[in-house]
């Protein structure tokens, strides 16, 4: 059998998937222990989307993220020390402790930010695409968005705008089939959101969001379309949360059969199995990767706990001109 992906590539993909998994799991513990406050929307179960998309991007490309943004940041190469420090409100966090979970951005890496306002990342992503087009950057902008956001005006307005202007813009719609506790069929008649893209003349794909390779391949194709034909492109990636909407939501409304089904399609296990079954790594080699990831998160938690907070004097100085 001919293997499509190198060991190195798949190992990196697996490592990133697992990093998000462990990051979320450990940070939820920190939340329960009172180290993290405010809103925290875990990306558990949806890791393959961020990882598959970002694996196809370069440093020149842009992303915008959502309220469920930790996975996007990590897949885009964020520094874990700075991420966890931010979740703890510490001074060496990405936003110096001023932003928190929903506002992590890293403009040096083209990450234009998570967002507390559902849908707000869409026009911002389109703006980044517009900037790359004006500058002839040979880059694309990707907006991670969600099924709930698709019902907000910015979605239709934005996608139409991107199409009217032929922008190198890729809308990655993470369709986890719920907006908080509202199932998608209660908030829209046509649940195949891919059709909205088609109705606007936008090349649109509906894919398995739990299959990291399918996400990766589709993103590469979307980038090709943006560069060789014309953008935008819509990718509707079907997925499911592993739990509630945020850490304080037990998610009891998620139907058990569906949850079980998606648990059985766990993106992290899927990639792990690929490493072993298709690439021939043995269990202990994979365990080595696992312990490396665990150690890295442990170290970052340690760093964040030790890190200080911005003082009120520094803060007052910072806001002087507001």
């Amino acid at each position, binding site marked *: 059998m001919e293997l499509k992906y190198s060991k190195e590539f798949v190992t990196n993909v697996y490592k990133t998937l697992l990093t998000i998994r462990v990051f979320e799991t450990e940070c939820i513990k920190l939340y329960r222990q009172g180290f993290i406050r405010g*809103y925290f929307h875990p990306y558990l179960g949806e890791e393959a989307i961020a990882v598959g998309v970002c694996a196809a991007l370069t440093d020149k490309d842009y992303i915008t993220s959502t309220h469920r943004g930790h996975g996007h940041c990590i897949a885009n190469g964020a520094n874990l020390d700075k991420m966890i420090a931010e979740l703890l*409100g510490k001074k060496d966090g990405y936003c110096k402790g001023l932003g928190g979970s*929903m506002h992590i951005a890293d403009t040096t890496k083209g990450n234009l930010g998570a*967002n507390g306002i559902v849908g707000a990342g869409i026009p911002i992503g389109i703006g980044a695409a517009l900037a790359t087009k004006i500058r002839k950057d040979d880059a694309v902008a990707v907006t991670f968005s969600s099924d709930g956001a698709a019902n907000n005006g910015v979605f239709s307005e934005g996608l139409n705008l991107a199409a009217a202007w032929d922008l190198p813009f890729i809308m990655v719609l993470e369709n986890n089939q719920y907006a908080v506790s509202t199932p998608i069929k209660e908030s829209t008649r046509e649940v195949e959101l891919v059709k909205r893209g088609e109705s606007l003349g936008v090349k649109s794909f509906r894919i398995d969001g739990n299959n990291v390779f399918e996400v990766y391949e589709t993103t590469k194709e979307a980038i090709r379309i943006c560069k060789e034909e014309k953008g935008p492109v819509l990718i509707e990636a079907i997925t499911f949360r592993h739990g509630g909407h945020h850490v304080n939501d037990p998610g009891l409304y998620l139907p058990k059969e569906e949850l079980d089904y998606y648990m059985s399609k766990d993106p992290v296990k899927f990639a792990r199995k690929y490493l072993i079954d298709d690439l021939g790594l043995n269990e202990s080699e994979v365990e080595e990767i696992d312990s490396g990831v665990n150690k890295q998160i442990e170290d970052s938690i340690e760093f964040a706990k030790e890190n200080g907070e911005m003082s009120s004097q520094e803060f*007052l100085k910072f806001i002087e001109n*507001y």
Partner: protein
Amino acid sequence: MKEMKELMYREALNHALLEEMRSDDTVFIMGEGIAERGGSFKVTVDLLNEFGAERVIDTPISEASFTGAGVGAAIAGMKPVVEILFSDFTMLIMDQLVNQAAKFNFMTGGAGNVPMVLRTQGGVGNGLAAQHSQSLEAIFYHIPGLKLVMPSTPKDAKGLLKAAIRDKHPVIFLEHKLLYMNKGLVPDGDYTIELGKADVKKEGSDVTIIAWSNMVPRSLAAAEKLEKEGISVEVVDPRTLVPLDKETILESVRKTEHVIIVQEAIRRGGIGSDIASIIQEEVFDYLNAPIKIVAGLNTPVPFNLNLEKIVVPQEEDIISAVQDLVGVYQE
């Protein structure tokens, strides 16, 4: 006298909705996750069971459109109560509020009405950060045609919400996320509190504190401590900022001759500044000292909890403002 019952603020709001929906078939509610889930702050629990999905409507995340649908339904003879989860998200519905709801009665020469209530909640609360913590009342205050209600107690919440629903004009009903679990005595059954009537939450003779929403309990706590130092504080809660009960405010100022306005919202362009200007214009001669405004700093709200504390007035800030004012200017 009505029986009194101890209720949480959120329960009092729930009772107001329940009673108004029972007595008036044209009242209906809509918002995100308000039906089955009963709302993020549990204000609308159980309403779905009694009134069904036609009058307790879960909406998609389409704020501009479902608010606009509320405006349209109101013009067409219904009394919608529209919920926006966080006042921060009202920035998405401003056209429907400002250009449509607020102006329809005026533009039609009084022929048309928009009897809609827009319920939402604001204020800081435990690290929700810059896009979920704002106090945006000044934005609504600035728009002629919108009434603005900000209750501080369960009793006021219920009576004012019932009055707001019965009002024929659009009302912004701005709750506070830290008040939902606060308890207080609430009269059983039907009663309303007229929009435009302030309430003296505590009588006193040395200083008047004017405060609304979550700054009321905070000011009352400060007043209690100051009382022990021999400073007698009167706390006036306007309850509705539009219409504003100037007379109750001015009467208190004439009595105490010292005024502190406490507002959680940022200082610049705030309602406190407007109230201060009304006071100095109308009763300047009574003032024994400059009016002091204790307000939020001119900044977005930081995520870090210690910094969050310094950007909005705390009990200590109110106490020291009163001490300064009375200490410096009282012979």
